[in-house]
């Protein structure tokens, strides 16, 4: 569709993206904006590493350093990693289950625009009096004392984008429950769909506590409530509980889709059925379940008492079991396979040792007495970067290469892809491996500098050099994207040649209505089954060619999200108490939002139909499914 959009001219293409409810275009939007936030978060990471390059550096002031580290964490988790994963979920999951679109196309668009305006709002803090500076965890004891509006930008921005994520989670759950093609039973769903399913369930149950906690923060600062004011009977530990009841499942919201992506990659490029598919599914569900039982392991040093610490320590260690099951299943998938070392496969193979290292340090921290030593040191920083970068970011980079042809119809260069992989992979270990030792040597996290007499100079310098490698890797990826987009060599349905699941049975990129006829699924790895049986079309159909019902595009999601964006500015400056315009701005913003909600509810939107003739033209013209 993108080539058609270009012919329409820039304005029309722009309007097309602003009003689209097509899951594939929303995926483009998520990928583009998540990618931009990833670059912003990456620049913030580089600033941190430049500041820590040598002892006593004054590149950043202490206050600016706090802002940079807070925004690095917040941006990377909420505005980069999660949206980019949502991009792949949107682009691929409906195709994998043979669905026409997601269950609620309108809400899909609304979810994106809420995330987008929330992210923009948060980042505007840099220009409007300072960014949040209490860390991405925003502990109340620190945050309520923070001056300026940084914390308010954090609270309101995350509220808006959090609503967006919650909506997406519900949408994916309903899609997978209700919209699977005939024959696509739960135990035939590809692993990426399964992990999307469980991650969406985690989103559903984890985001409300964050929203509640953030509202308490807003109420304390805006209306003078006393949730966190100890002199008025408040309790700052409530924030820590609410935050981590969200925060720990959030880790699994990020890593489970990453596991799904790697499961696809291992099967495709080992040319083997996944080893232990059932065990992988079961492990995914178990990880999701235990994810809610372990939040207090982030709070061992708070003083919840030995009983609580023991229970949460044990629960945390148990999570290592299903995760270990997964690692062995992947290894046994590779075992005896006919392996092709493509770029995605390189990332997948690099992921296993990196993630295991992160997991092992995680089990170390689960031991509460040891955690008293490790807490708030660089050991923790090393650990969670091993899990997030070694797991999630490697998965994102792998999926970018794997699914790029499906999303945009052209391959990324394998040669440049491998250069990116080696630069990023070496840079990653160079940066973070040594931080384990910095932590054991006593270097605290979130402190803007260190003394020359503390003996941390060399290791920090090495770590900063590693960050440079990662940055180079990302720049080469961008070059790769630009170069291959200019060349724009079109590819067929199954550009890797070894696709196993339904998304590879459809044109790259797929037509806007997806499958012209809903496919019939005859087993796990259904496209592979059809290929092995010599089916030239790549699938069998569950229905004759008939007219297709499609939803209308809509501009309402943008307006609805923009209303909250406007209201948030009013709420933010209302806290100063000396401006007359703030209450009207809040009211205008809420009127925009609820007015467009009412408009949406009252105006019938029945969608439109694509006629059979039009579909036949597409199928014959080779625009639709079928191997070419």
């Amino acid at each position, binding site marked *: 569709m993108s080539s058609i959009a270009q012919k329409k001219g820039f304005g029309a293409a722009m309007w097309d993206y602003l009003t689209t409810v097509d899951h594939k275009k929303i995926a483009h939007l998520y990928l583009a904006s998540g990618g931009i936030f990833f670059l912003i978060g990456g620049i913030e990471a580089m600033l941190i590493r430049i500041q820590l390059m040598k002892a006593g550096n004054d590149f950043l002031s202490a206050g600016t350093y706090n802002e940079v580290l807070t925004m690095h964490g917040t941006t990377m988790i909420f505005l980069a990693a999660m949206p980019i994963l949502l991009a792949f979920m949107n682009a691929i999951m409906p195709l994998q289950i043979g669905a026409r679109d997601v269950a609620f196309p309108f809400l899909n668009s609304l979810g994106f625009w809420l995330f987008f305006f929330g992210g923009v709002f948060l980042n505007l803090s840099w220009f409007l009096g300072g960014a949040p500076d209490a860390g991405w965890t925003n502990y109340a004891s620190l945050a309520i004392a923070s001056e300026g509006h940084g914390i308010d930008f954090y609270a309101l921005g995350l509220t808006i984008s959090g609503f967006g994520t919650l909506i997406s989670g519900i949408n994916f759950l309903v899609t997978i429950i209700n919209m699977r093609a005939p024959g696509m039973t739960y135990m035939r769903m590809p692993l990426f769909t399964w992990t999307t399913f469980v991650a969406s369930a985690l989103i559903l149950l984890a985001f409300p506590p964050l929203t*509640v906690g953030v509202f308490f923060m807003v109420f304390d600062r805006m209306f003078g409530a006393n949730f966190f004011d100890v002199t*008025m009977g408040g309790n700052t530990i409530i924030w820590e509980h609410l935050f981590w009841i969200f925060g720990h499942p959030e880790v699994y919201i990020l890593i489970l889709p990453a596991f799904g992506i790697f499961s696809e990659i291992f099967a495709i490029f080992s040319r083997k059925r996944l080893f232990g598919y059932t065990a992988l599914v079961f492990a995914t569900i178990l990880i999701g379940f235990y994810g809610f039982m372990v939040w207090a392991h982030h709070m061992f040093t708070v003083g919840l008492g030995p009983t609580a610490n023991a229970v949460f320590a044990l629960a945390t260690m148990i999570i290592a079991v299903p995760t270990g099951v997964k690692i062995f299943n992947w290894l046994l998938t590779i075992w005896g396979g006919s392996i092709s070392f493509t770029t995605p496969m390189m990332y997948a193979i690099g992921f296993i040792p990196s993630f295991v290292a992160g997991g092992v340090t995680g089990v170390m921290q689960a031991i509460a007495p040891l955690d008293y030593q490790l807490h708030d040191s660089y050991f923790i920083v090393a650990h969670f970067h091993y899990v997030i970068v070694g797991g999630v970011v490697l998965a994102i980079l792998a999926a970018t290469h794997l699914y790029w042809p499906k999303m945009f119809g052209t391959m990324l260069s394998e040669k440049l892809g491998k250069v990116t992989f080696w630069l990023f992979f070496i840079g990653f270990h160079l940066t973070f491996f040594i931080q384990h030792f910095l932590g054991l040597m006593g270097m605290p996290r979130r402190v803007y500098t260190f003394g020359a007499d503390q003996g941390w100079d060399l290791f920090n310098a090495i770590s900063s050099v590693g960050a440079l490698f990662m940055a180079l890797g990302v720049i080469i990826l961008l070059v790769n994207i630009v170069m291959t987009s200019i060349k724009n060599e079109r590819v067929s349905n199954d550009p890797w040649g070894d696709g196993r699941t339904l998304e590879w049975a459809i044109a790259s990129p797929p037509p806007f209505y997806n499958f012209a006829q809903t496919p019939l699924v005859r087993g796990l790895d259904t496209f592979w089954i059809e290929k092995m049986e010599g089916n030239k079309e790549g699938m069998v159909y569950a229905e004759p060619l008939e007219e297709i019902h499609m939803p209308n595009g809509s501009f309402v999601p943008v307006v609805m999200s923009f209303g909250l964006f406007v209201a948030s500015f009013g709420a933010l400056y209302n806290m100063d108490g000396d401006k007359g315009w703030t209450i009207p701005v809040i009211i205008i913003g809420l009127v925009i939002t609820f007015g467009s909600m009412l408009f949406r509810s009252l105006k019938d939107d029945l969608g439109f139909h694509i006629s059979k003739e039009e579909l036949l033209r597409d199928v014959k013209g080779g625009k639709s499914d079928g191997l070419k």
Partner: protein
Amino acid sequence: MDLNKKYTPQSWPDHPETATMEGKNKFVGFWLLLAAETVTFASLFATYLALKDKGPSGMEFAASNLFELPLVFAMTMILLTSSLTSVYAMYHMKNHNFKAMQAWLGITVLLGAAFLGLEIYEFNHYVHLGFGYTHSAFSAAFYTLVGTHGAHVLFGLSWFIALMVRNSKRGLNMYNAPKFYLVSLYWHFIDVVWVFIFTVVYLMGVIG
């Protein structure tokens, strides 16, 4: 979907709310939303229990001397009755009796508005006693929990009214039947939350 198709009670499906794909999706999606709402209220309840009776030293207010059960009991009865009347409305919706459904929905809205009025009166009363929102952690937790419920009641009422007015001329069809069903589901959820508020905040509060 053909909005002009005329149904009779005989041709109307048994479960119009899930008779179409859109209806099925809305049905599942709304139950999931209620799961998220449950977690939201669970967080608010937990916070309330942690901050109950907590305030600046020497605070004179406590749950045991602040709340009065007669008014709250009346509110509870009104809201529970409104849940019953919304069930009657759904009974008539399933029998394709539009007028009766609108009438019972109207009664539901009136009862809901009465509940909301009493809640505003109650809050106003406490504020006049000096127990304002900024008074203490206890007051903040109380007003936020009960007030969030009140905001849900207000939203539910607006939703009822919007649907009733929008469809008053054209009656029931397969497009709006799921919408009526969902708002009544929402209303039941609000009712269940209130039962917990009545128990945890008021009954347990008065007992001490």
